[in-house]
């Protein structure tokens, strides 16, 4: 007589065994497949941005895989959902390095996930190109496999304050940020640099609040700053600016590249027309290719690209270029070769000329200050270029 739990387990195992063995043999499969993985949150509260990264990568693969396919390789995208959680990201990373066909990782959205995960990629010298991790630590560790297409918080914060000081002639500023690595990071660098330039900081607040900004805005209104800087992402910034303008606050608005989404005006409408944001993703007048990208994106996925989709597109294009360079010999490229090759790629992308320095930062980051032109989300592309700045990232401080 076999007990019930035992029988249950046995039955379960039998089913598994039946399914497992054929599936296992299939998993071996075709030889010439090269894979590029994305890791970003695809579910949960940050899914919209994470999905943008995935879609940007997907678009780039479809566009640039031709060369590798001619050489006889199949190119696949493998999207992973890191759920914005470090432990899930690390487990995914281990899964990624176990698949020998994955030659590059595009990700992550959160620096908090990217840093521990890249420690795993480093074990096998698997290249990671980040579209969104602006935290200086990501590249300051000096790993040979870690690169980023996006700018650094310390650079972008300074771009913002330079603009506020020299163009807007702001005398006073109030800074609000979203308490994330990104938002707080960029806000702190803005503050430090603005104070150096003589702008008086009337307040520096962080908040995880997503909907109700009244209590934060009340003191802002009472202090009447000339400029409000919001360090964060559009989904939080848009309601913030909308409520600020409804409350009758007359300050100018400024924000980092997290604002660069047509959803900003979709949510905030008239309130943000005339506001400024700094971004590395160039306007179509400077980079004609950017227009093509946003049009293809819209045609294929039926919506405007999220922030970081363009960066993910460029990152993937660079990875493919590097793989192609290594694969010329006709052999299956090794991970280390790809990682080395990525540092040598010069790519004219939709976010400008990209070339990595020895840390994996962009040699020269081109920054744009843009002004929102229209309350219609469809006309996001009409935003005016106000200023253009080229800044090289700081050298590693040791």
């Amino acid at each position, binding site marked *: 007589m076999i007990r019930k739990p035992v029988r249950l387990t046995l039955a379960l195992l039998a089913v598994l065994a039946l399914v497992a063995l054929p599936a296992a043999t299939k998993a071996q499969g075709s030889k010439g497949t090269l894979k590029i993985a994305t890791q970003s949150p695809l579910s949960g509260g940050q899914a919209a941005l994470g999905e943008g990264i995935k879609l940007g990568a997907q678009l780039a693969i479809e566009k640039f895989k031709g060369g590798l396919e001619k050489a006889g390789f199949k190119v696949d995208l493998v999207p992973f959902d890191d759920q914005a959680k470090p432990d899930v990201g690390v487990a995914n990373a281990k899964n990624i390095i176990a698949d020998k066909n994955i030659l590059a990782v595009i990700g992550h959205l959160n620096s908090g996930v990217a840093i521990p995960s890249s420690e795993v990629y480093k074990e096998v010298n698997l290249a990671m190109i980040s579209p969104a991790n602006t935290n200086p630590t990501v590249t300051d560790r000096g790993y040979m496999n870690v690169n980023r297409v996006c700018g650094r918080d310390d650079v972008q914060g300074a771009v913002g304050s330079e603009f506020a000081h020299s163009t807007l002639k702001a005398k006073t500023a109030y800074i609000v940020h979203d308490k994330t690595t990104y938002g707080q990071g960029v806000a702190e660098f803005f503050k430090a640099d603005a104070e150096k330039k003589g702008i008086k900081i009337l307040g520096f607040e962080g908040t*995880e609040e997503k909907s109700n900004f009244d209590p934060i805005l009340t003191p802002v209104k009472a202090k009447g700053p000339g400029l409000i800087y919001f360090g964060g992402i559009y989904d939080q910034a848009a309601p913030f600016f909308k409520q600020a303008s409804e*409350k009758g606050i007359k300050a100018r608005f400024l924000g980092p590249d997290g604002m660069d989404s047509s959803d900003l005006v979709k949510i905030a409408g008239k309130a943000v027309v005339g506001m400024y944001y700094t971004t590395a993703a160039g306007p179509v007048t400077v980079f004609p290719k950017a227009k093509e990208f946003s049009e293809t994106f819209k045609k294929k996925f039926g919506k405007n690209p999220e922030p970081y989709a363009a960066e993910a597109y460029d990152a993937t294009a660079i990875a493919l270029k590097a793989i192609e360079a290594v694969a010329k010999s006709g052999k299956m490229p090794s991970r280390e070769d790809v990682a080395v090759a990525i540092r040598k790629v010069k790519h004219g992308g939709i976010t400008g000329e990209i070339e990595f320095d020895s840390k994996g930062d962009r040699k020269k980051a081109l920054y744009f200050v843009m002004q929102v032109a229209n309350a219609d989300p469809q006309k996001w592309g009409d935003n005016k270029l106000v200023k253009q700045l080229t800044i090289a990232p700081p050298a590693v401080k040791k």
Partner: protein
Amino acid sequence: MDLQLLVDIFPQVVLDGIILGFMYALIALGYTMVYGVLEFINFAHSEIFIIGAFVGVELLLGLQSLGALDAVPWPLVLLLALLVGMAGSGLLAVTVERVAYRPLRSAPRLIPLISAIGVSFFLQDMIRLFESLWHNAFNLVYPTIDALNVRLELTRTIDVPVKSLVVILAALGMLGVLWVLVNRTKVGTAIRAVAEDQAAASLMGINVNRIISLTFLIGGAMGGAAGVLFGVQYGLINPYSGFIPGLKAFTAAVLGGIGNIPGAMLGGIVLGLLEAFAASYLSLLTGGAFGAEYKDIFAFSVLILILIFRPRGLLGEVVRGRA
């Protein structure tokens, strides 16, 4: 420290806090209704609440695309959105109870809690799936109704938008209706009987299952109304944005004494005020050392303090205690 500034903004902060508090109170009513009857935390209530917001926004967007949004007077539009939102959330709450909670009624208390967490996960991504197929986006924006955004200037430093007054009025109205329903009608008596003792109530000829469904319907409808008002007040909703307000409202319900309807109202307002004061004043008072980000710590610390001295919440004694 600028004393004048502190004094100047005081009335505005109180007002901000009260508006936020009424929002919490409306959501808290749903937790408290269900808890009062089943002694069970309906963890999925935050999703039931946000579904109301989604149903409401669908209606408004539909009206907008028909061009009817500006043609119809705004109180009518708002009323319609509220009713649709209440119906959507109420029906969903009943369905959730039927599918995920009823089979577990005799199980230990934590079992339906886990089931509710499952429902919560499921609903969040279900809304997302639906909206991304329907609109290809899951961050939805409430169309602006200009009349609601008019700000009434009370004094030089205090003003309040019409929509916030609507929130307060709606919350007070619903509290009143609910109180009458529970305390003055036959159905209300049945609900209280079931809350007291299910077995005895069923011996008295009360259909317990129906009363429990009804409780979920009412609690869900309250959540749905709160959802629509939330959307109107703050503009942006996504499938996950119910979670935090839900958590806060649950806190408010406990603070007031869970299971107690006026308690939920009081708890909501106390919590709203605490948050508003912390967010506005902490940074000013400490010279920037501690800022608005500490508002939750402040709110929870006060909650713990209150519960130490009144372990059953502010108005908790009124409810029957099951030892």
